[in-house]
């Protein structure tokens, strides 16, 4: 993993993606096709480069072989689709992510070679449905996105040094730290995430991932206490 991410586009979507990703320890580079947008990104102090999306040589010159993943986040769906197709053709193994605003576009982006597509309106449609039918719980869920209640989801990957290695989940005291265990990736059972609500008992092993909810400091205390 090189931890380098390229975002193609710096419009409405691109800016929003950049803003969200910039909070993490990634090297983010912006690639744009329009001079005005390039100027805007330069003014925002970003690492930005102009390229010609219709010219494969121009795309090759971007050095995508050393990149962890790319995000096609232009505001124009047709251009995102075309770029996804071009990049996939040039780099068959590169991880490509895209943003979509309809079920049809999601399918097309996947056909063009995107590994993961985030359906903007699909998510919003679900969120609006939740707000309508379950206003309190949807507000609680939205609190994780806009950090309004100070609670977070956090992963705890079990290391060899952790005293939890070999223990059963039901024997662990989460309450003392005021945190909630909501599920885990139990490698013994596969790579899928299993919610605690499934009612299964789990034996914790090295490299299993626990998913915890609570205040960050409380989760950190728990992780520290258990050799994380």
């Amino acid at each position, binding site marked *: 993993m090189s931890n380098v991410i390229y975002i193609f586009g710096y419009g409405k979507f691109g800016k929003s993606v950049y803003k969200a*990703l910039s909070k993490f320890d990634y090297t983010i580079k912006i690639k744009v096709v329009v001079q005005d947008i390039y100027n805007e990104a330069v003014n925002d102090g970003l690492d930005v480069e102009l390229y010609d999306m219709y010219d494969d040589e121009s795309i090759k010159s971007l050095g995508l072989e050393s990149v962890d993943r790319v995000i096609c986040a232009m505001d124009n769906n047709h251009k995102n689709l075309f770029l996804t197709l071009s990049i996939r053709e040039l780099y068959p193994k590169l991880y490509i992510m895209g943003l979509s605003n309809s079920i049809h576009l999601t399918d097309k982006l996947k056909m063009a070679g995107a590994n993961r597509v985030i359906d903007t309106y699909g998510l919003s449609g679900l969120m*609006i449905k939740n707000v309508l*039918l379950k206003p309190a719980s949807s507000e609680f869920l939205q609190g994780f996105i806009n950090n309004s209640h100070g609670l977070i989801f956090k992963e705890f990957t079990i290391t060899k040094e952790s005293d939890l290695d070999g223990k059963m989940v039901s024997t662990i005291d989460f309450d003392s730290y005021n945190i909630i265990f909501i599920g885990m990736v139990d490698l013994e059972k596969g790579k899928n995430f299993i919610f605690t609500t499934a009612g299964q008992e789990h034996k914790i092993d090295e490299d299993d991932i626990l998913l915890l909810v609570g205040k960050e400091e409380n989760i950190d205390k728990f992780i520290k206490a258990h050799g994380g």
Partner: protein
Amino acid sequence: MAKSREKTIFMSPFLYLARSKKYRDTKAYFRTIFKDPTNKVKQWIDYFLIVLILSSVAIFIYEVKNPIPVWLEYYAVYFASAIFLIEYMVNFWLYNDIHKDILTEYNKAKIIGIKPNYYRIFFKSLLKKLSYIITPVAIIDLLAILPAYRPLRILRIFVLFRFLKLLKHSKSLYQFVEVLSDRKFELLTLLVLFVFVVVVGGLAIYTLEDMENENIKSLIDALYWSFITITTVGYGDISPVTIPGKVVSLVIIILGITMISFATSVIVSAFSEKLHELKEDRITEHLQSKSEFLVICGYGQLTKVFLQKNRELIDSNEYIILDNDASRVQEANLSGYRAINDDASRYEVLKRFYNNSSKITLLALTGDDVENIYITLNAKSLSRKIRVIAAARDIKLYNKYVRAGVDRVVLPNELASSVLTSSIAYPTIFKAVNAILSSKNVATLDEYYIDNYSKIKDKSVQELDLNRYNIVLFAIKKGFKGVLIFNPKSDYIVKDGDILIVLGNKIAIEYFRELHNLGSYS
């Protein structure tokens, strides 16, 4: 002094009525239950009167050839007529406010500085009040009461007017008459032409066949023949026997067919023009009869996706889409959704749907932030009780949405970015949140509303024994605007008004809800 006393004696009852809040409120209440078509009581009154009309008319018709029990006669004659009389009197009372007219006339006289003529003012206002009696509705209502007068059997024919009363109380019949009245000019022109042709045809056959045709004995016979021929009924009891008479017949038949076709086309075009409006009226009425419904503003991509994910809502028909673009409305209708071409930012448009007793949620999803904020302010100015959920394109406008009164703002771009980021940085969290957001069966985030009927009220969290059902209690909210208690302690006592936010298997959550009689939001 005398003048002052005259004024006091004359004006005091009207001044009393104008100042009496109780009188105003009472009259406003009666006006609502008798005149407001959206009022539930008015609807029940209409149903009651329709039943009364139909049953009394049925009894009258049965009575023509069969004896009926006395009590049934009392019901059809006296009880029904008494109810109609009461209705007539109430409508007469509601027609206008005589005291207001008198006070207006009195004030006018005062302003222009002349001595008020109390008797003239009183009679002028009284005449205005009595003008109700000669309105078509009042005449029908009065004639419908007449069959109660038994000594004159001829008055029984007025039972037919009870049927006419149905026009007033049956929405469909009323709308039919309304559509026809919109084409009054065309239909009246046709009627005049019709009468003209009948008379001319009748006179022609009378003069041409008076001595030749033994069936035409008078002008009435000739007019009768003309009428029967022009309407294409043609009983055949009178028919022309001379060549000129037969020619007249041919002309009359052609004119008759032409006029009938023309009248049909006028009526059909009137209906097709009104059909759209009638359909919208029906949708509005349907929604207003619901205790809860949704007004979706804008039929863009987000609305389409939202509707695709809410099949239950579509099936329930408890929604309406408003869009000011006719082509989008057509697209929505073709997709099987209920959409109306109207501008939700207009006060009158939203007011059409407003109903004080319904829980209304408005979704501002137009794709234009300025438009959404305008619609929000429009809805909130109509009633603060309307819940507004808006999708904001630009996060910078978030505060403006909040200031406009939006109850919940959804930020599609930020939501997508946040999910995309978590899929990169925290893939496990992404999987979990995605499952919760999509309400996957095993990970349904839901809420229990505690009220006085909830069996778990006043019980501790430990006593709820949620672990047994594999339900995770995330938090308890002390009412909608109250504080959030995350991971409540086992000794926390659940109180009336609390909202429990839980995560669990959908089936387990519903089972626990039913077991303990717990409420949901809707």
